[in-house]
């Protein structure tokens, strides 16, 4: 193994390779900042460039893009309340309020260090434990996926505003929207009304950008008041530096993030988008002051951002150890690996040539490159807030349009984005919230298809959902979390009543 690492070192520490990794990281960061453009897109665009490169150099470049896009989604989430990818939705909960206080630089500094720590930690986990974790992920059958999604849906209660009922409605709306398209088991068209673009269901990205970005644009247009000038003095630029000490002081949140990223990330098809929400939920539950979450609390940012980069390492586990990519970005990466002649699987880890160690080290270097680029850029990012509001408004709309159009090249998705934007505006305005909608949209299909797939596999028998150990465990945890949430909700409600009476 040591020999392997030395071999790997000699592959990574060459000027060309280091430059390729840094270049990939930079492109990933740029793509991640723009709403709609994802790491999958960045990797796909870089793919032809890597064909002629030696394996570790090419894969390093792709890993750089993966890593860069993983962190930079937090920039628009913090500065503008616009998450570019589903995994940075939770970054807005605390990042935006903190930025509103004039501490955007601090929020970014926390996000950068947390991402970096999450990335490095997941690299260590990946290099040591990939094969056993991958085997564990294989134990997920239909019953386990179903129970996992129920566990995830309970998080709705945690991200809902004060009214649990309205949060639930928002979650159900998202779940209902997810049933649009071809039925996943029977193949029947549901609510497509002859629209070809809806055959494969509602795309997450246009929905996400509509719910968060367009709704925010509409809100800003509503509130636009030239009398209220955003002065440069309000934003403390000198706060904008990486925050190592403060991040590590939030070690509980950091561990929660790394933990959920590494555990949820490897589960194919389910992990990516919800790992950060799970991390936020867990960090809040185990925090000494959970009421601070959602008001610009540093632990909130740390948990989400560390999970965001830890899940990338997590998602690489089944990709490298089994050849099973968890989602779009690692699927493209797998294509890149195979074109390079690297066949993922257990044999890759037994391979003595050092390629796999080179890949691990390249991923580590990508994290350092990310840290460096982000630290250099942080003061520039904060300046975005000084762009006059009306021009910023127009520019964001343009980027949303391009982001949605570039992914699938389908104008229908732009209209879809607008519809979700109007819906999101009113949901926010009347206290329903938009985060539950996205959760419902992502988890809904996992819940429905796996329930029905499981029933078909077990030939109509319901009991395996409750008797299979993993599945039963998830359901039990979900039930417990739900009970705790309801109890906390009830107590808060009673406290509220008393306050009104005494007032």
């Amino acid at each position, binding site marked *: 193994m040591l020999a392997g690492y030395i071999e790997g070192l000699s592959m990574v520490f060459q000027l060309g390779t280091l430059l390729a990794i840094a270049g990939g990281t930079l492109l990933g960061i740029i793509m991640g900042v723009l709403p709609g453009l994802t790491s*999958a*897109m960045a*990797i*796909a*665009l870089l*793919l*032809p460039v890597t*064909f002629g490169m030696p394996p570790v150099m090419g894969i390093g470049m792709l890993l750089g893009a993966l890593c860069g896009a993983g962190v930079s989604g937090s920039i628009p989430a913090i500065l503008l309340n616009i998450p570019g990818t589903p995994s940075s939705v939770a970054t807005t909960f605390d990042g935006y309020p903190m930025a509103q206080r004039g501490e955007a630089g601090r929020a970014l500094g926390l996000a950068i260090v947390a991402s970096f720590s999450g990335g490095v930690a997941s690299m260590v986990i990946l290099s040591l434990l990939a094969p056993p974790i991958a085997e564990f*992920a*294989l*134990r*997920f*059958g*239909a019953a386990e996926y179903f129970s996992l999604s129920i566990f995830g849906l309970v998080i709705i209660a945690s991200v809902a505003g004060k009214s649990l009922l309205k949060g639930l409605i928002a979650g159900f709306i998202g779940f209902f929207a997810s049933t649009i398209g*071809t*039925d*996943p*088991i*029977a*193949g029947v*068209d549901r609510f497509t009304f002859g629209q*070809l*673009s*809806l*055959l*494969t269901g509602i*795309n997450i990205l246009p929905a996400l950008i509509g719910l968060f970005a367009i709704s925010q644009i509409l809100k800003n247009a509503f509130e636009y008041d030239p009398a209220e000038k955003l002065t440069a003095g309000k934003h403390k630029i000198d706060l904008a530096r990486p925050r190592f000490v403060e991040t590590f002081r939030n070690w509980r949140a950091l561990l929660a993030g790394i933990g959920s990223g590494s555990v949820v990330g490897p589960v*194919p*098809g389910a992990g990516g988008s919800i790992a950060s929400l799970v991390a936020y939920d867990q960090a809040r539950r185990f925090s000494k002051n959970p009421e601070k979450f959602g008001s610009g609390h540093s632990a909130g940012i740390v948990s989400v951002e560390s999970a965001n980069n830890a899940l990338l390492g997590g998602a690489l586990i*089944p990709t490298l150890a*089994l*050849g*099973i*990519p*968890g989602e*779009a*970005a690692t*699927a*493209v990466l797998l*294509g890149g690996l*195979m*074109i*390079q*002649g690297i*066949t*993922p*699987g*257990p*044999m890759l880890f037994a391979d003595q040539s050092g390629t796999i160690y080179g890949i691990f080290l390249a991923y580590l270097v990508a994290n350092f490159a990310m840290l460096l680029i982000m630290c250099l850029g942080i003061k520039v990012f904060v300046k975005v807030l000084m762009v006059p509001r009306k021009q910023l408004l127009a520019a964001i709309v343009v980027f949303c349009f391009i982001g949605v159009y570039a*992914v*699938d*090249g*389908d104008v*229908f*998705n732009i209209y879809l984005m607008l519809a979700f934007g109007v819906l999101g505006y009113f949901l926010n305005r009347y206290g329903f919230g938009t985060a539950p909608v996205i959760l419902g949209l992502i988890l809904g*299909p996992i819940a429905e*298809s796996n329930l029905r*797939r499981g029933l078909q*596999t077990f*030939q109509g028998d319901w009991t395996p959902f409750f008797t299979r150990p993993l599945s039963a465990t998830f359901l039990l945890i979900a039930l417990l979390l739900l009970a705790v949430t309801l109890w906390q909700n009830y107590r808060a409600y009673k406290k509220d009543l008393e306050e009104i009476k005494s007032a």
Partner: protein
Amino acid sequence: MKKLIVSIAATFAVVAATSAMAEYPDKNIEVIVPFSAGGGNDTFVRALQPLLEEKLDTDIVVRNIAGGGGAVGLSRAVASDPDGYTLAAASNALQTLEAMGNVAFTSEDFDFVAKVLEEPYVVAVGSDSEFETLESMVTAAQNGQSVQVGVSGVGSSAHIAAVAFSDAADVEFNIIPYPGGSETISAAMGGHVDAVVLGGAELRSPLQSGRLKALGMSYEERSDSLPDVPTFKEEGYDLSLTVWRGIAGPKGLPDNVKETWVSAIEEIMAEGSFQETADNLGLDIAPLYGDELDEFITTSAQIMREAAGDLAQ
């Protein structure tokens, strides 16, 4: 003034006429990939892109128009001008959509330029499966055992292939659709389904690592990429199908466009630089052009339609 306008108009007319007569291609060629960046179709086009750009001496713009399992992008390709500057990455998805009756176009609305790559549909089982041969799997199903066969996507070409195989073997499998190839493979590795029907490229790494074993595949004859795997026909099931990828355009492509493309692809294949990429991806190079290609398309469309008809019932 009038003179000026006339002369400008004349200049334009001359320019237009020369550009029509000029060698194809004289501007960028757009290739529509009807799937998101990163899918099998996308990788195929992007791998060919630099080689084609060199041969055709122009830029190729890959435009991903995804949605509806390829329906949106292919509909756009059909509706575009047949001038050779808008082409599409065609595959089985085209025939699958047609067979499932979801789209307004048929393969008759396309002009097929070339078929480039092929992979077989493979029936694979977990490494510790009770089934050693296709026959044992079919017999188990005949004896009333529920044999669960995972496929990637409801109404996908793999789904249709699985139905076609069960028709050929005259048994009922419990066919279980998964959202995509990787979910299907992990279900088979984890023992959640008995077998899977998937394209050979997706199965390449699990087969190589020995986590899954192939029982049979859908080529007419054995292939170099899977030399030990018997064909369905060898095992006594009358079915031959392939997953193919190629280039097509809207009906009415000019002959010189087709000729230019065919000779470019022929040259690339002859040079052999593409061979390694295809091997690494688990794909077989099986170029086919002209009338043979049209015949191939007709036959496979026929098989897909029949199987899809059973699926719809």
